[in-house]
């Protein structure tokens, strides 16, 4: 499973092959774990310091207050605080809520914190790692457990330097989970007899959750062994296969639009695949591969792409118009490159959308249009007759060069 994402990419990502799909918050993921019998710390989510105080009161124990954003590394950025009393919990929540939390995963602008999870603090004996993902390697397509005795924040370092410390266990798709797999992992983790029993239940339930909810990733890190020797999921990440969401409305409802780029939310609602980038050449392309290639070519021609935008296969003129509006609402965009190779998407539909959009938007930006493919003659004729102003390009690289030249 690929792990390369465009920066700022949240929710539905450009290409299924290198995305993990929909993300949820830690508190939501813990509710899911709790609902299927996996031990998590007692706690609740709060949006105000008062709510945080009430939760801490209820816990009657020292608590930990954790910022809820879709990014890791929160502790180092000051997004996680210990509180000995409910007063301290309220103070911690006051400090964290509303802050612009910067971590190595948020980018320099950080992410605004709108919710905190208040849960009981736990004395940790040892930190383990446990996850479940899909192994897509050729001939091995199945879910695979990964576990390590060396859990915690440095797990990737462990994977790089001591890969033997990570144990894998594939689940045969026809057989499903079998108890020996839990034993195999438990022994590798050095668990005692009592812990092994709990662990077997955790592994079984994790696999069921993974299947039942079309997860693309379930990760418990750390899976702590507490001071009393109990297993407890202290932090967890769960992502979902976007293509499975249609059959899980309850999961889809967990989506947090606040965690997404506003333009990307608008794009998603229009079924347009859009990712904002930092450059000034706005591009509208059909197909993810060609869209990435267009970006590569803009860069090769000396420019910087302002976005990734895939209008998709069967885009209607209305959708093209919406895509166009999204593109032009980015103030950084100084010129536009439309690159369409019609297969599923017919060029006449693209032209109709462009004409429709240009009629409604006061278009001042220079534009390069390259159309090729199904119904291309009709598409070009429509553009010619529309009176729309644009530069025509034939070749792939030529289109990128002309767009960059328009920047002046």
């Amino acid at each position, binding site marked *: *499973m*690929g*792990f*390369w994402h*465009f920066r*700022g*990419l949240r929710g539905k990502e*450009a*290409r*299924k*092959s*290198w995305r*993990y799909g929909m*993300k949820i918050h830690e508190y939501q993921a813990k509710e899911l774990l709790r609902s299927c019998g996996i031990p998590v710390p007692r706690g609740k989510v709060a949006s105000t310091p008062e709510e945080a105080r009430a939760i801490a009161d209820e816990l009657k124990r020292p608590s930990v207050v954790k910022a809820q954003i879709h*990014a*890791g590394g929160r502790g180092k950025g000051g997004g996680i605080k210990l509180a000995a009393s409910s007063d301290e919990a309220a103070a911690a929540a006051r400090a964290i809520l509303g802050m612009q939390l910067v971590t190595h*995963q948020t*980018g320099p602008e950080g992410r605004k914190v709108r919710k905190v999870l208040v849960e009981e603090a736990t004395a940790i004996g040892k930190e383990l790692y446990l*996850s479940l*993902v*899909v*192994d*897509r390697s050729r001939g091995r*397509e199945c879910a695979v457990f*990964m576990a390590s005795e060396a859990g915690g924040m440095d*797990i*990737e370092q462990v994977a790089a330097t001591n*890969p033997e410390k990570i144990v894998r266990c594939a689940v045969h*798709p026809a057989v499903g989970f079998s108890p020996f797999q839990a034993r195999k992992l438990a022994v590798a983790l050095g668990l005692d007899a009592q812990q092994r029993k709990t662990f077997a239940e955790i592994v079984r339930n994790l696999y069921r959750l993974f*299947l039942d909810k*079309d997860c693309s990733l379930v*990760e418990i*890190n750390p899976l702590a062994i507490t001071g009393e020797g109990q297993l407890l999921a202290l932090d967890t*990440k769960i*992502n979902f*296969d976007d*293509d*499975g969401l249609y059959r899980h409305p309850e999961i889809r409802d967990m989506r947090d639009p606040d965690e997404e780029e506003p333009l990307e939310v608008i794009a998603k609602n229009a079924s347009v695949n859009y990712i904002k980038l930092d450059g000034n050449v706005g591009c509208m392309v059909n*197909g*993810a*591969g*060609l869209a*990435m*290639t267009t970006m*590569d*070519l*803009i860069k*090769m021609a000396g420019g910087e792409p302002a976005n*990734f935008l895939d209008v998709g*296969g*069967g885009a209607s003129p209305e959708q093209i118009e919406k895509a166009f509006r999204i593109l032009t609402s980015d103030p950084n965009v100084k010129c536009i490159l439309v690159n369409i*190779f*019609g*297969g*599923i998407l017919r060029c006449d539909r693209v032209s109709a959308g462009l004409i429709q959009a240009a009629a409604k938007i006061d278009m001042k930006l220079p534009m390069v249009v390259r159309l*090729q*493919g199904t119904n291309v003659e009709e598409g070009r004729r429509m553009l010619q007759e529309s009176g729309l102003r644009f530069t025509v390009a034939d*070749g*792939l*690289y030529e289109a990128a060069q002309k767009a960059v030249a328009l920047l002046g």
Partner: protein
Amino acid sequence: MSILLDRESRIVVQGITGSEGSFHTRESVKMGTKVVAGVTPGKGGTQMDGIPVYERVSDAVNLQGANVSGIYTPAAFAPDAIFEALEAGIKLIVCMTEGIPVAEMIKVKQALKGSGTRMIGPNCPGIATPGVGKVGFMPNFTLRPGNVGVVSRSGTLTYEMIWQLTGLGIGQSTAIGIGGDPIVGSGFIDVLELYEQDPETEAIVMIGEIGGTAEEEAAEFIRSRVTKPVVSFIAGRTAPPGRRMGHAGAIISGGKGTAEEKFKALERAGVLVEKNPAEIGRRIQETLKAKAAGS
């Protein structure tokens, strides 16, 4: 010659009456494809442009001798359509449908194992053998019969590449889009193996993308098993690397998946790597010329 799709291919289109299914079936018939039947549940007994529409794939096999299926059904019904084609004894399944959950594809892969049936896709532009026929979206006008095999993970980028070849007068033996999903029926290696065996294929164009390890695996296969020249481009070199959720992805892929990693792996395998996709056609032209001069 060609691979997978040839003059013996008799196609049944599952989802023939839908808007995409009917449009692309008509396009394929225009280039001479033998579409012998369609299947749309609830519309059995009707016709589309004189093509009989059945209730079941087995009817298309028994009554019309269908041996290849093209699937255009919506994602929620596509796994069922695949299993039905498999059960009916279809030897080549080409699934264009986008949005099939990964969990369903794991089951599909399981069902395909040992069945003797090959599958292309899902979420792919399909397969075309110029001069013979096509299943899927590849625009007719881009295709030209010839000796270059094309295999790609992309859709429209594949048309681009084929169009470039055709523009230079270079035809294709067969062109295949394997699809961009995490799990696909046939990967690069399956298709490369067929091109290597096909006596008419003289050179191969392979178009990859960032993410996953399919290109790295293909590089290893090319190094040890492919004697024909391979020209390759990987899309997404300038996609800025960024955030990821969890550590599992990094652990399972072992740091592979970037365009640079893929270019390097391919170069090491002796592949003719081309970083400007507009130059792919020219590179193939040079390769074929050198080959002709050498032999």
